């Protein structure tokens, strides 16, 4: 019997007052904390008689250490960090400045190089970074300011009073698999906050609570996502220059699926160089058998990639979803007591495959609004909605507006998408109309019975993408081998944090209708259908929550939308050191 995580009832919770609680210590949350500290320090110098304190400003981070759950390609557009810390080049861990970029379209064995790099993929002036190391550095800057970062603590619940968000409840610790308190049980705190800032990253669990409670997304397009599956490789030096950037489209996906790969040359270490490569698969594919981890493995088998990786060693693995619904999919980002930042809001430029600079910028703008709220001692919607206005008059909107219809243009496949992209480039993002409608990705998944009988002819994933992948152990890997390299670790004795609202649906309906796609889309082997003769279809859902890499794909892609990802006991999760 599966027991799912929920706050323990009937315990007295420690209360802690707070001025600002930032949930999530990624680039958005850290930038927000840092900017807030800058503003308070500036204020305190100017107003010696009206000092503001940083004592009660907190960042909650569910990872055991700062940056451990941060995963991205990553390329950094320095625009926002240069605004926040003009001297960043001297101290930020930047691995290489982009020197060279190329875009390819891959067929099974061949490749075509795009004669020119599309303007939005031109990366000169950007940097190859490890987001993990970059955020560690940002975190150390935050700690220097005196703001407290609580690592190993997740935001589990939002606290409400009427239509106002009044705080955040942290995770209960020391709860066993059956949901009982262990001898070292520690109840989560109620952090009573004047301002709650959600910077949880992609598909934030508190953000989801908030959006559902107030039906915030009613006027927005449904958010759409992709999942990026990444491996870090150590290669003999000279294969790819530090700062060399390659994008590919096409194989192994068909023209019906959205997605593509990146290969970034990072810095070298002696006789080896580090390469980041990964494949983003749009989570709006039709065939429930598609497996994003397998897509990456097949991609590596392409002669072009296999040659590059030959003799190298895979050293790290990870996966993370990313929101690329664009401008029209962003919900209101401020209200009574709350603001939403970065990937949680959907600030990501899907044409440029970049969101770190937007995350940082949104953090900076939210900090300015939070500062105003603290000085005025008013964090009502009237004050915090300033953040919404700031976003709309900043370069965040300017940048996202131009690509506001990009992803929707791909809903009918790649060729339609490229046509639409071209059209949108000429018309400043408009294309055929100002706002293209969008559809949630899970809506587009087809039941097994609806799949075309002859898959290859219809362009659905060909046989090479189906079924669990074995791997050769050198170039390609099965999921468990990859998973080992994510360093993921959780307290084993705790309730499952993948909250399935109706497991009966898994056992009786999904297995028949979709063939249990959770087993395929999860890049970490969390979901398993095990034999059970008491079930009508002979299979029962079983979970390995300890494998979870916190990518949120299940919450996004499940066709029935009955999986709710909530944070496990704080401190658990992947270890993306160097990723």
């Amino acid at each position, binding site marked *: 019997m599966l027991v799912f995580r929920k706050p323990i009832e009937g315990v007295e919770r420690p209360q802690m007052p707070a001025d600002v609680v930032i949930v999530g210590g990624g680039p958005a949350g850290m930038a927000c904390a840092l900017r807030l500290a800058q503003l308070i320090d500036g204020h305190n110098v100017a107003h010696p008689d009206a000092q503001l304190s940083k004592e009660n400003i907190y960042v909650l981070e569910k990872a055991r250490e700062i940056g451990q759950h941060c995963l991205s390609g990553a390329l950094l557009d320095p625009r926002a960090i240069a605004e926040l810390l003009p001297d960043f080049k001297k101290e930020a861990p930047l691995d290489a400045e982009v020197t060279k970029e190329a875009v390819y379209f891959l067929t099974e064995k061949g490749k075509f190089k795009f004669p020119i790099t599309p303007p939005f993929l031109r990366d000169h002036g950007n940097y190859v970074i490890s987001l993990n190391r970059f955020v560690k550095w940002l975190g150390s800057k935050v700690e220097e300011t005196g703001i407290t970062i609580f690592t190993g603590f997740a935001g589990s619940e939002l606290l409400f009073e009427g239509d106002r968000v009044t705080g955040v409840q942290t995770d209960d610790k020391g709860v066993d698999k059956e949901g009982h308190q262990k001898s070292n049980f520690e109840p989560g705190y109620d952090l009573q906050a004047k301002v709650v800032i959600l910077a949880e990253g992609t598909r934030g669990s508190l953000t989801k609570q908030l959006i559902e409670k107030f039906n915030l997304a009613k006027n927005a397009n449904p958010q759409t996502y992709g999942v990026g599956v990444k491996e870090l490789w150590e290669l003999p030096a000279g294969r790819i220059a530090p700062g060399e950037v390659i994008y590919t489209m096409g194989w192994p996906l068909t023209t019906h699926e959205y997605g593509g790969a990146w290969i970034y040359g990072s810095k070298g270490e002696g006789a080896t160089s580090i390469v980041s490569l990964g494949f983003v698969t749009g989570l709006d594919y039709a065939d429930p058998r598609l497996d994003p981890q397998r897509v990456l493995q097949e991609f590596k088998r392409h002669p072009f990639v296999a040659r590059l990786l030959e003799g190298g060693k895979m050293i790290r693995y990870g996966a993370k979803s990313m929101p690329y619904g664009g401008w029209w999919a962003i919900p209101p980002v401020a209200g009574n007591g709350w603001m939403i930042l970065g990937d949680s809001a959907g600030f990501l430029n899907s044409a440029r495959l970049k969101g770190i600079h937007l995350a940082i910028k949104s953090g900076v703008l939210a900090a300015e609004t939070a500062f105003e709220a603290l000085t005025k001692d008013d964090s009502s919607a009237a004050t915090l909605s300033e953040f919404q206005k700031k976003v709309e008059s900043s370069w965040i909107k300017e940048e996202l507006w131009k690509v506001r219809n990009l992803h929707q243009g791909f809903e009918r496949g790649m060729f339609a998408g490229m046509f639409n992209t071209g059209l949108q480039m000429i018309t400043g993002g408009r294309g055929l109309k100002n706002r293209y409608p969008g559809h949630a990705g899970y809506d587009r998944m087809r039941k097994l019975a609806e799949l075309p009988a002859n898959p290859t002819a219809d362009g659905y994933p060909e046989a090479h993408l189906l079924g669990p992948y074995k791997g050769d152990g050198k170039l390609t890997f099965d999921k468990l081998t990859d998973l080992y390299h994510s*360093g993921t670790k959780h307290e084993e004795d705790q309730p499952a944090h993948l909250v399935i609202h109706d497991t009966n649906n898994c056992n009786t309906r999904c297995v028949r209708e979709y063939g249990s796609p959770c087993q395929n889309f999860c890049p970490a082997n969390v979901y398993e259908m095990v034999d059970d003769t008491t079930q009508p279809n002979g299979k029962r859902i079983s979970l390995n929550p300890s494998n979870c890499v916190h990518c949120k794909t299940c919450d996004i892609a499940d066709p029935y939308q009955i999986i709710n990802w909530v944070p496990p006991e704080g401190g658990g999760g992947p270890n993306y050191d160097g990723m």
Partner: protein
Amino acid sequence: MKILVCMKQVPQKDAPLKLNESGTWIREDVSYEVNEPDAYALEEALRQREKHKGEVVVITSGPARAQQVLREALAKGADRAIHLEDDKFVGLDAFNTAKAFATAIKEEQFDLIFTGLQSDDYGYAQTGVILAELLGWPHATIIMQIEKTDAGIRVKRELEAGYFQFVDMPLPAVLTIQSGINKLRYATLIGIKQAKNKPLRKVTLAEVQSAIGGNLQKIEKLYVPQKTKKTEHIDGPPAEIAKKLVDKLRNELRVL
């Protein structure tokens, strides 16, 4: 009771390790954590303090990153911390580490010093024992239980094969603590916040330099074990297989 807990920052257990250029230790680019037995030693010290009052002080040696271990200990309830901070402390052997600790605490008067049973990285299991010798105190290793008595303490030691030994000892004493002696507590938000204002004394290498000398132990070479596992099939009728198996166990593997 005034208790000192010696703690160490070690590479995370599951971290993929890479050897350094000279093949004598690992590269620094791994994540670190509190050495597991030390976490139990700290927990035990906190429990003893809860029972008998007193003070818990934590000490570590290592570069700036090692301070994390002390901060975690302070967040869980230790009263103050001592950090012997220098990159060079990383390479010290157990003898010199113990000497450095003994020098750093010579002004203090502890009733008990706890260390973890051994470190997850070097695994010497010597620092605590040598420290006791340097201080001229009695020590006991692999401790599973500690009771205060009128004359001192009574401890339970774990021996091989499920046997335990109970020892009465006077104070002051050094104990090396076995993992699993208790259940670890979680740090709390308020604990983490308060830890920021707890005293942390830094000790430089220069302050203890005169006490330490050249390493008596040295790692010549580290290497990743080669996979040499071989599977051998023994075929034939059962009686013959049994005979061949016994022969192998007796004459090749010499386990019978």
